[in-house]
């Protein structure tokens, strides 16, 4: 269980990078951590991991600040940036040193490399790895200590489609084992197939903390109808209480009734329709609508608060 309480980080005098963030991340499910670029996702994760000191508030893992853990890897596995490695070392040496620092058996190195599909690349220098391979190495590092809490910051950057599918499966598997899994991204579509729950932030503030379904329902839904007789259909729909807007020579945008209801009304009033299409309600749209405000706000005050 991860808990943020009034977590705040302010760099200099600008707008805070993270502003009084309060929410919790539960075990047993994949939680998506979403926000546009510069929303404060990485800063939040860094504070959670004790790398940056919060200006105010607390971030705890299982009730304790990360810095009070003795051996980090056994309690929290994290992939912040796949490039946080020394390029001159081999994957084996990199992982072996980390494993040793936490008194983990040497055999774990081979096991996690096999899990992420890098068995054959263990003896190669990390400098020669592609970004996708480094992401896999970062995931291997997170898994090294078999921890109950896992954090992944934009883990699918640079992964090929097969790799993305594999990573999604892995996150779901880890959550199904009862672990707390937090995966950040700035792409809603990526979360659609991975997360059970979403925490959305914009400009450092909490925008949403709810299930995937609830979040999708936030998007303004509507119906688009194509008909050879828009005047007649508009009359019928307005009489039924819908608000209708003409958006093309033969196209109407309808707000209020569902697509099925629009079809029903057209059928009973004998108005021909060519197409009835429900639009909106997608995660992508909900995300764009919710974060639009914070993105605009950030752009307007970029001199002060652009630093991540």
């Amino acid at each position, binding site marked *: *269980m991860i*808990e943020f*309480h009034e977590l705040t980080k302010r760099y200099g005098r600008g707008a805070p990078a993270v502003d009084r963030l309060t929410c*919790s991340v539960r075990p047993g499910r994949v939680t998506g951590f979403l926000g546009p670029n510069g929303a404060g996702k990485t800063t939040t994760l*860094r504070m959670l*991991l*004790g*790398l*940056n*000191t919060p200006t105010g508030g607390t971030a*705890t893992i*299982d*009730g*304790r600040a*990360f*810095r*009070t*853990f*003795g*051996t*980090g*890897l*056994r*309690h*929290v596995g*994290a992939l*912040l*940036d796949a*490039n*946080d*490695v*020394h*390029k*001159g*070392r*081999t994957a084996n*040496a*990199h992982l*072996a*040193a*980390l494993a*040793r*620092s*936490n*008194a983990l058996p040497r055999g774990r190195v081979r096991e996690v490399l096999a899990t992420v599909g890098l068995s054959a690349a263990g003896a190669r220098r990390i400098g020669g790895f592609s970004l996708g391979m480094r992401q896999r190495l970062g995931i291997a*590092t997170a898994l090294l200590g078999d921890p109950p809490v896992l954090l992944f910051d934009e883990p699918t950057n640079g992964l090929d489609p097969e790799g993305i599918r594999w990573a999604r499966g892995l996150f779901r598997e880890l959550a199904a084992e009862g672990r707390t899994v937090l995966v950040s991204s700035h792409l809603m579509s990526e979360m659609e197939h991975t997360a059970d729950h979403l925490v959305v932030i914009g400009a450092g503030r909490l925008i949403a903390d709810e299930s995937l379904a609830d979040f999708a329902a936030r998007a303004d839904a509507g119906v688009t109808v194509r008909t050879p007789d828009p005047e007649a259909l508009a009359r019928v729909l307005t009489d039924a209480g819908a608000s209708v807007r003409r958006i093309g020579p033969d196209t109407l945008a309808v707000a209020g009734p569902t697509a099925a209801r629009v079809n029903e009304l057209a059928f009973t009033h004998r108005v021909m329709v060519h197409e009835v299409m429900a639009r909106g309600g997608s995660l992508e749209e909900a995300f764009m609508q919710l974060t639009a405000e914070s993105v605009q706000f950030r752009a307007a005050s970029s001199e002060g608060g652009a630093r991540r």
Partner: protein
Amino acid sequence: MTTTTPAATPSATAPARRRDLIAAEWLKLRSLRSTPIVLALLVPLYVYFAYDAASITHDAWPTLSARQRQDVDPGHDALPFPRFLLLMATAGTIGAMTIAGEHASGLIRTTFIAVPARGRVLLAKMVVLSGVLALLGLIIGIGAWGATFVAYSDRITGFSFGTPGVVRSIAGTTVMVPMCALIGMAAAMIVRHTAGVVFAVVVFFLLGPVAIRGRLPLLDAASSAHLVNAMPAYAWGRLTIMTQGHIVERIPSIAAAWTALAGWALAAILVPMLLRHRDV
């Protein structure tokens, strides 16, 4: 909400064991190609320097008067001061790079996520690097004196490892090399910029001893001398001087020189401990 959290198991707070951290840092040091290569090159280089200097003395020996022969200081041949400034700068750079390299690559974050107790990690790094460089200093000290005695051959007699001052100068070198590395590490904790810190270290070790020679502004002659003598290079240099024939400057006591070296090492260990809470 924290009140409902079950009490953490003792293992959660059990700190990472020192020997594991030291072993991990040793693995890190060993697994980089550049460090062992640089260290391995330094030994023959400094043994050669000693042999070279001692050979010049050896060749000149027949032309020296009895009085001049008394003033010959074999410490100058075995451990030539200007060339050792370069060794100090190299050791300082190696120390700086162990910290700067981790910051530049971002590895420091991975390291601190694995072991949140930063003080312990830094201490382990210091132990490993100091140990390796102390060994380097010891090997260079013994090798340089050995080469000197070989070059002197049977022409310049009366010097051996038992000669007063030889063991002291070897011990001084054994302490000096890791001390320079610790200063470099501390500098890298302050200046978090690879090129910047390397420049600072090189200036401090190569230019510093030349720049602050003599009377310093705002200080009287005695204080100036104390300060200059406490510089790492001069403190170490004092330990290598075996005859004092023509030295007219204020030279520190052997004890003062040892104290200066220890003081630098201590300061270099404490500074990183004070800075360990900075954001990384």
